[in-house]
């Protein structure tokens, strides 16, 4: 009897640790992951999901965009996710390399696969559906499917809370919001459809003031004035790069907008706003609050 129970337990245990894991990644190919002992993550939101499903201690390397949760900063960085080197990644002896489907150069993925390392590519679509797909791919790749589904359910709860909150507050008319992507006062972009932060603004019940552009385009002052934004949304690091709020308001065209006159600027943490992940619902709720319920300059930290 005892032996039977023990055998049953052993069988259950082997089931729980059933490796290799199998996952269908963003490119539609089935990847076999023989071991998750040493993971190198090439993308900020992927890293966040890995920690959220409980395999953070197996992450041995990261890219420059992975800074959340803070303890990941102690891991060595393999650099910028669009300028990767296969050997640098391999030097961390990974058993699994996981990153966005658009990592660069594309040869690196082939080179890694040629050396026998499992490479899983995560979808990047900036929608709620995309967020769920991301969570599921990452969770399945490390054999934590159930934890992944928990995260998906939590995200759905956050989204329900967001809808309820939006309905409760029922703002009179939508505010027009403009997302500015800034990397120093000389590098200014306005973003439209397809850009992740804009997807987040739409989820938060804001109207995108930049009409008719895809992705991010260089900003001209007159087009900013013509867009008549009630709110300006930026990344925290982007705002810092132009010298904070006062620097932003000094940029040509900004002061002539309704948002500029009222100083209505929302600066959000880059990963929180800029990557549809497990915290997408919370981020959208925070953005909704900052835009509709608060005055002046709001800084949103996760």
């Amino acid at each position: 009897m005892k032996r039977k129970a023990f055998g049953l337990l052993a069988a259950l245990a082997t089931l729980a640790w059933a490796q290799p894991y199998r996952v269908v990644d963003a490119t539609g190919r089935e990847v076999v992951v023989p071991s998750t002992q040493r993971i190198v993550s090439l993308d900020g939101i992927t890293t966040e999901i890995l920690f959220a499903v409980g395999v953070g201690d197996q992450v041995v390397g990261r890219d420059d965009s992975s800074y959340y949760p803070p303890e990941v900063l102690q891991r060595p960085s393999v650099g910028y996710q669009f300028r990767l080197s296969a050997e640098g990644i391999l030097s961390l002896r990974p058993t699994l390399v996981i990153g966005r489907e658009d990592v660069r150069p594309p040869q690196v993925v082939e080179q890694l696969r040629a050396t026998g390392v499992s490479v899983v590519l995560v979808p990047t679509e900036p929608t709620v559906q995309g967020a769920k797909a991301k969570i599921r791919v990452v969770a399945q790749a490390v054999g934590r499917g159930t934890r992944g589904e928990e995260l998906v359910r939590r995200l759905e709860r956050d989204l329900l809370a967001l809808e309820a909150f939006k309905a409760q507050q029922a703002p009179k008319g939508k505010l027009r919001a403009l997302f500015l992507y800034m990397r120093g006062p000389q590098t200014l972009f306005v973003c439209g459809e397809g850009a992740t932060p804009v997807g987040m603004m739409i989820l938060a019940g804001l109207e995108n003031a930049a009409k008719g552009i895809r992705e991010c385009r260089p900003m001209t002052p007159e087009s900013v004035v013509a867009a008549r934004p009630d709110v300006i949304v930026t990344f925290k690091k982007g705002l810092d790069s132009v010298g904070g709020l006062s620097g932003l308001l000094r940029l040509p065209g900004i002061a002539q907008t309704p948002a500029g006159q009222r100083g209505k600027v929302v600066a959000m943490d880059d990963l929180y706003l800029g990557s549809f992940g497990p915290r997408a619902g919370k981020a959208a709720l925070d953005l909704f609050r900052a835009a509709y319920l608060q005055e002046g300059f709001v800084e949103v930290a996760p």
Partner: protein
Amino acid sequence: MTSATVPHHLQRYRKALFFLALLLPLALLLGLALGAYPLPPLAIPQILLRGEGVEYQVLTVLRLPRVLGAALVGGLLALAGAVLQGLFRNPLVDPGLIGVTSGAALGAAIFIVLLPGAGPLEVYALPLFAFLGGLLATQVLWRIARTPLGTQVLVLLLSGIALNALVGAAIGLLTFLATEEQLRSLTFWTLGGFSAVTWAVLLSGLPLAFLALGLLLPLARSLNALALGEREAFHLGTELETFKRRAVAGAALGVGVAVALAGGVGFIGLVAPHLFRLLAGPDHRYLLPGAALLGATLAVLADLLARTVAAPAEVPVGVVTALLGGPFFLYLVLRYKREVYRA
């Protein structure tokens, strides 16, 4: 010829060539032995004999094609640079002046920005587009420089400058049209680097690279004659038109292959011939092979620096070559200035 009868200055050339011929294999071995992935250099023969495992893969799939690719690219750039400096009789000529580099960049930009959705094809189609763009640009320049009295080298040089400016504007326009994702591909490509050199890309470039070597290396005598001036070279029996065509075609081929393999790796084509002249002298019979060996060595070492200095991340190799080459180029310009104004 025994060494006793060899004149003194030739001995210096031979020594330099011999030294460089030893240096290149050393640099190749060093490049193969060192990298971000820690391997004990002494264990490499064992790893290669074992023929399996991650370490074997790192050596054969990643490092070997990369090191050989760097050597090939550096050698081609330096050889093309040496030939063009001789052709234009100007020590400050860079292989980019005959439009190949900027034409290749335009070809790549057109492919990235105007033909999106290539996906996995990008790995092969992008080098091809770059290569064709480079050749096309040089072809246009060649047409411009043709006159009834033969090809005018000065016109070639001046129209090269004009074409580079125009192509720069076109690339600027494409950059403006590009989405952020396309910009990433574009900057990765223009900064240059050997991290994307795989066996497939390297082997597809080899035949053309050898064709370029075959066109350029035999030009040494004519280049020596040309140093006296076009008319003198003609009287010494150089077929000027054939010679110029071969020089420009060979340089365009060589630089085209180099740029297609590694993007815009600057300064090697300019610096390597000068280094050899400082080491030995200006005789093209020795300068052409010497510059090629030196360029190959420099490229392998620059790449080694680029991939180890910030491991596990990687510095763009164009940054390394420009950091080393920029100050050196300035020094050359200053020296040139002093010489000219002393005369």
